[in-house]
């Protein structure tokens, strides 16, 4: 997927002027936040489960190589196949090869952010393999020729009217208005696609090493129909999705549902192990897992390792005041919000993604709600350190900072500088007590008055009072 993260500021400005998007984000703000809070309140063990979840993931990451090998072994024992991909290109090639080998003309997909990461849909379409998104939000976004703007609610930025128009055009029907009618129309349209598909491609919420199982979590049931009806099921998963046992997956599943949508449990949590058994009446005859690295290995053992605990619940972005002002598209790539701010520079480079970890006040709400206790602001700060080391931030900012730091380390100089600057500001500020405009401070005074200083500094006054005594 082409990244527009460098245009974050323009993207954000446009997004903040988009009334439709702002209304949708308003729904999200109260919807997701209130529901999560209510679900957490209903479960006394919630915070303990978060700590347990963190411990499980930390243990897994410390032994990721071994657990991946065991997972692979178990999948093979059950009659499935495992493929390894170092990067997006390899993953696309593997999936294309499998689809072509199956003579696939049509493929259904359930939601997979990894498939966005590797640009799978375009690759399939380029090979004349029809690719249909089955998650309703992804389906809508696909019809619009857009990308998802939220990892859970891909079409959150779209109104009902827009959806109605898209459906009318795509299905060749008269536009309908009621949400129920829209849903019924989508259900009907996609039902045909499910039966037509030769291959079903899903992501994976978790990979269970103990049993070689793939865990899929949905509310719509589209993953079940995507993987269960065609001849071949391909599960595309990044390597850090591994969890050691089924029981430990339950801990993660409990915090996932509550953190994401405020549900006690998602409508469908499915464990898939191997292809259909010989006597089964339904199920795919071949089962493939594609394991993708694409930079995750490079995060292990570094200061960014903690982000590998992420279970893609979306709580961070649902509570982020920046995300809720700009929406997901402003971030310019696959992953938005705080987790996107930490991940994106790893994938597309800090040069292209530098706005993302910088456009944060470090308010800390993301870390507060993260079920996996990921220190998101800390990792955004690491990216700023990386940026600083490589001298990638704008020169004026860097010199300004150098000047400030130089003075801050030298108290006498600091006091002198402060005295001069404050004295000057007081002269300019006059009686009104504030500035409507200040040179070099248009970032502030463009939209805010700047309060004038009171007079001499506190330390100067304190010394004067003390000397008088």
């Amino acid at each position, binding site marked *: 997927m082409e990244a527009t993260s460098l245009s974050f500021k323009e993207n954000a400005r446009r997004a903040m002027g988009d009334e439709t998007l702002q209304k949708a984000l308003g729904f*999200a703000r109260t919807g997701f936040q209130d529901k999560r809070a209510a679900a957490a309140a209903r479960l*006394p063990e919630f915070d*303990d489960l978060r700590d*347990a979840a963190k411990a499980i993931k930390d243990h897994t990451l*410390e032994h*990721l*190589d*071994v*657990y991946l090998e*065991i997972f692979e072994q178990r999948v093979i024992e059950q009659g499935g196949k495992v493929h*390894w991909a*170092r990067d997006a290109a*390899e993953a696309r090639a*593997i999936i294309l090869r499998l689809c072509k080998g199956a003579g696939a003309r049509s493929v259904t997909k359930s939601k997979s952010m990894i498939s966005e990461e590797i640009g799978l849909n375009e690759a399939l379409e380029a090979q004349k393999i029809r690719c249909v998104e089955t998650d*309703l*939000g992804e389906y*809508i976004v696909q019809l619009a020729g857009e990308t998802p703007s939220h990892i859970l*609610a891909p*079409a959150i930025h779209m109104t*009902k009217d827009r959806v109605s128009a898209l459906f009318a055009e795509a299905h060749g029907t008269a536009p309908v208005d009621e*949400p129920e009618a*829209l*849903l019924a129309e989508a*259900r009907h349209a996609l039902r045909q696609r499910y*039966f037509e598909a030769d291959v079903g491609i899903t992501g994976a919420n978790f990979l269970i*090493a*103990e049993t070689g*199982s793939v865990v899929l979590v949905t*509310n*719509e*049931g*589209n993953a*079940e*129909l995507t993987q269960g009806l065609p001849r071949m099921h391909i599960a595309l998963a990044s390597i850090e999705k591994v969890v*050691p046992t*089924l*029981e*430990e997956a*339950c*801990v993660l599943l409990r915090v996932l549902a509550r953190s994401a*949508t405020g*549900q*006690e*449990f998602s*409508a*469908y*949590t499915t*464990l*898939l*192990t*191997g*292809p259909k*058994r010989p006597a*089964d*009446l*339904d199920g795919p005859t071949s089962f493939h897992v594609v*394991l993708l*690295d694409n930079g995750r290995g490079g995060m*292990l053992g*570094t200061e960014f390792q903690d982000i590998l605990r992420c279970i893609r619940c979306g709580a961070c972005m649902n509570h982020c005041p920046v995300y809720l002002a700009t929406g997901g598209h402003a971030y310019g790539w696959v992953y938005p919000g705080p987790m996107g701010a930490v991940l994106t520079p790893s994938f597309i480079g800090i040069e292209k993604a530098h706005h993302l970890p910088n456009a944060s006040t470090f308010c800390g709400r993301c870390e507060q709600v993260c079920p996996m206790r990921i220190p998101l602001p800390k990792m955004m700060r690491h990216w700023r350190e990386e940026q600083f080391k490589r001298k990638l931030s704008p020169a004026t900012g860097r010199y300004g900072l150098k000047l400030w730091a130089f003075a801050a380390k030298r108290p006498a100089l600091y006091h002198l500088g402060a005295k001069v600057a404050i004295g000057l500001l007081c002269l300019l500020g006059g009686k009104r007590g504030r500035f409507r405009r200040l040179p070099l401070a248009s970032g502030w005074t463009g939209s805010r008055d700047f309060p004038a200083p009171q007079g001499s500094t506190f330390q100067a006054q304190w010394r004067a009072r003390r000397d008088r005594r």
Partner: protein
Amino acid sequence: MSGEARDAVLGRLRRALGRGPRTPDELRRKLLARLAAPQPVLIPARGNLELEGRIRLFIAQANAVQTEVLRVGRYADLPDAAVDYLRRSSLPLQLVMATDPLLRRADWAATLLEIRHGRPEDRDPVGLTTAFAGIAETGTLMLLSSPETPTTLAFLPEISIIVLPAVRVLRAYEDGLRALREERGAMPRSVNFVTGPSRSGDIEQTIQLGAHGPRRLLVLLVDELPDGSPQPDA
């Protein structure tokens, strides 16, 4: 090809974790032993109740997610309960049904129901199958795929009816998984934890039922025990 990629990916992980080029056998054995004895980490106390308490909790939680629950005394009561439900809901008296032996305890032919068995097709409006267990904690059904209980029975038809023996209402998911290991030994192709009908909030954040999976979900909870005796009065 994949072999080279595999070595590269695992190699990078091993280097990052400070291990040598090959995993030490000792470590592998330790982790395999850990996997062989799965321990639940922390199970919420919510479901820690006697059977009747668990059943009440199951019903309350299920209702909260728009699952309807009807309780009957015996398997023989199922056909009438199904007919009654379908009539009340103005649904066709047609069922595609699992071939679970439990269901043969009832005389389905004695009703006006049109019954097929096996794998459902798109035209089948109502599917009926059996659950392996119920999970009281969240009103969840645990379904296993098998020749007798094809998964699509619970996913393709718009109306899903699930028969659940009341004595199989367990505390938490972990209890269901332990029962799965003890009773079946191996994982089936699918284990489905179903909590309510299919739903989506993707159209203007309004939750609607029946996105792709069933629009309605009915649980028929049967008190009769596996050996055929009725549940003791609770």
